[in-house]
């Protein structure tokens, strides 16, 4: 109830003034918030980020705020969406903070009134307006790409594909691995973009190439690192880079047609069992410190303008990307899942 009055008053505030906004006034990390969060002692973080990044990030937060245990619930974004939906239907409110690689998820969540508006000064001042909800219910945490990549010990650079259409070449048949849009938000978002740019006909041809079908966008990087397949049709680009930086023979390809771009919004749930710890976690992740941690470890593109992208990675502006359209993904998601399953048989 009190939140409602807060919402009503925020329209007058300067930070929300660009559009007519229900966003609450931006908050700082105050000792009172930390104290209240520590009293709760735990926070659940539902995410689609690879565990090799999400768990260390959780540990860094725990080190910064001792006494608050983060439980990372990682799954594919589409799975996360389904789990939260099923839990809410049964009135089970486990989720404190959700972070999805399918930005479309935040639209129904917000419409159903499940999200608690929360804005920090970092979010209000250092995150571009198109990277956050005008009403303050969600904010982009980081951006990554769904890139093509190949194992250089299995494919010579001169034989490597340059883009999506190249992958239809019969010489790549049986050599590719790909994630599933019914599981992964990265792949769902990417599939919507590829269908828009190249049409379903592209996937119908690709399906004839004997593609190894895995679930998560985090798995193609692991499959080509292991040498199980030579080429990844898609996958979270930061994991390709991380494997390459560890010395694995991997090369990332930014397709000539364009590379799907994926934002990763994050929100606090209204029914969060640990609302203060949830706010503290979001505030920290969006702070320069949290953003720097993600960049240093994984090289994903930060949402906070104060933090620079990782040295050695191509600048986002230098890559030809497909524009992201969350509203279209929301409308087409069921059709994409059904049609994809029909084409690829799983």
């Amino acid at each position, binding site marked *: 109830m009190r939140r409602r009055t807060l919402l009503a008053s925020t329209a007058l505030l300067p930070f929300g003034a660009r559009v007519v906004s229900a966003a609450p006034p931006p908050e700082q990390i105050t000792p009172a918030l930390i104290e209240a969060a520590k009293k709760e002692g735990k926070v659940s973080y539902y995410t689609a980020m690879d*565990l090799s990044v999400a768990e260390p990030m959780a540990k860094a937060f725990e080190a910064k705020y001792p006494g608050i245990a983060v439980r990372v619930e990682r799954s594919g974004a589409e799975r996360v969406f389904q789990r939260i939906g099923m839990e809410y239907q*049964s009135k089970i409110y486990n989720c404190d903070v959700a972070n999805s690689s399918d930005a479309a998820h935040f639209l129904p969540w917000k419409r159903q009134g499940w999200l608690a508006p929360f804005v920090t000064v970092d979010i209000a001042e250092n995150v571009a307006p198109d990277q956050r909800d005008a009403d303050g219910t969600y904010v982009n945490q980081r951006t990554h790409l769904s890139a093509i990549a190949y194992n250089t010990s299995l494919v010579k650079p001169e034989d490597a594909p340059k883009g999506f259409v190249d992958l239809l070449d019969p010489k790549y048949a049986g050599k590719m691995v790909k994630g599933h849009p019914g599981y992964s938000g990265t792949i769902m978002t990417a599939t919507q973009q590829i269908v828009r740019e190249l049409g379903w006909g592209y996937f119908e041809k690709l399906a004839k190439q004997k593609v190894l*079908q*895995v679930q998560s966008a985090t798995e193609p990087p692991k499959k080509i690192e292991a040498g199980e397949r030579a080429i990844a049709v898609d996958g979270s680009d930061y994991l390709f880079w991380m494997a390459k930086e560890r010395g694995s023979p991997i090369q990332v390809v930014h397709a000539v047609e364009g590379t799907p771009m994926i934002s990763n919004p994050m929100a606090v749930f209204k029914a969060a069992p640990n609302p203060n710890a949830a706010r503290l976690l979001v505030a920290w992740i969006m702070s320069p410190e949290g953003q720097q941690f993600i960049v240093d470890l994984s090289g994903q593109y930060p949402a906070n303008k104060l933090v620079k992208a990782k040295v050695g990675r191509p600048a986002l502006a230098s890559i030809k990307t497909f524009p992201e359209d969350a509203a279209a993904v929301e409308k087409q998601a069921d059709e994409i899942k059904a049609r994809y*399953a029909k084409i690829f048989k799983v």
Partner: protein
Amino acid sequence: MTRSLDLSRPVLIAVAALLAVMIVLPVGWLVVYSLSDKDGSATLGNFATLFTDPTFVDPLVTTLIIAVSVSLLCCAIAAPLGWLVARTDMPFAGSVRTLVMASLVTPPFVGAIAWEMLAAPNSGLLNQLWRAISGMPADEALLDIYSLEGLIFVIACYTFPYVFILVANALDRMPGELEDASSMLGAKTWDTARRITVPLALPTLLAGALVAFLQALNLFGSPAILAIPAGFHTLTTRIWSLFQFPPKPELAAAASLPLLLLTVLLLRAQAMALGRRGYAVLGSKYGEPRLIRLGALKWPAAGLALLVLAMPLFLPYAALFNSAFSRVASRIISFETATLHNFRFTFLELSSTMPALKNTFLLAVSSATVGALLALLIAYIVARKAVAGHRVLGFLATAPLAIPGIVLGVGLFLAYTRPPLTLYGTLWILLIAFVTIELPAAYQQLSSAFHAVHPELEEAGRMLGATRLRTLADITAPLLRSAVIATWCFIFVAVIRELSAAVILFTSDTKVLSVLIFDLKESGDVGAIAVLSLTMVAITTVVVAAANRLGGTRTAGRLHARAVG
């Protein structure tokens, strides 16, 4: 008798009501849902979809092909191996028998993951080895686990032990006199085997074939891990996919019913095949069967047995150990490259590990305790015919055998996500699922234990003047103690490896180890999977060994072949 009857009446009603909640309610909702459309009005549309839409028909056909092939393959392996172990002087026969049973501790989905490490076409360790030996080019493969054949092979690896136990036990109990008579009448060793041993063992083998068929029909984990990358569905993975967003519980319920019906039919067939199995072999009045001398074939036979054991045991565990200590699962570790990274990650970073271990352990102990006590109570009432209507209890306790794990999961989900009993999201729903799934086997073990002591020993006790109570205390109870402990162990092991119902029923707060492993599989974190799988098997082994010491009996020998998801 009349006194116990009075006391038993409320017990009977309570137990029957409990079983109804566990079985009738979920199956009832399943039927209701399968006959409803999205808005809840009656329709047969779901079944029309089921039998016309190729995305359902194809998995149905695939599943039948898999089940038949697995069944044949299991018999082809288990029958000769069972005969070698039970009836010949093959060296290490005892160890082979123990190891085949030990391989049952491996959850089938862990086996599938391990075989993926071994026989993935490019990165599989066996394929790499073969390339190194034979010089086969890099993009060709000796083995491809992502195929129908690969899936059939892996399912058979973890199904043939059930057939093996049935066959070996039947051969153990076969009267030696018949074979002696045959050889005294001048038949050669091999003739005796062909004319006496094989025909006597045939009903058991048939029953074993049905067990393997049911197992393959209802298995979820291995197909989910191997079939989907290969680009096809089985019926169980298809049912599970209907629970993904947007969930279609009506279709899932409809798709569950063919599995249910087929299982019921096959169980009837199995009962007919096994029905009169016991007539000549009960009691221990017959002589020990004679062991056939293999002569020069002794060592080749042992070699063959070890080769068979390599498939479910040696090779998969070698692969799991390798990837537990390796940064990339496809690389064979050496002392320089071995790393504890995966152990650090699993136990220090992965925040789901400890909650999942705790939930799993709690559920395994409570399901085993509740399940063993419930089965004991029902077995007692039925065996002593303590109350009128005891047959109903026996039937209800056996009925879940006909419900595949994933189907029960769907049914429980439909039944308990609504008032009055909203159990979804709690450990209770998982407890109900696990007890229900394991009850038939537990009940069968304990009721056969009751029957085993009833006819001769107990009556002897009474004839010698002991009261019924005295007989129970002095004769029945000590004999049952080891059976109860064996049953407890059986349920404990089965719960730890259960995936198919858990994968439908878990929530983030009630995640169990098997579901965590499955989750990790979907993101390709094989290092952590290897560590968790080895942990899981280690816990199981320690608990079973401890319980065996407590019971002073060979528990594994009591494991009854049964169908589990």
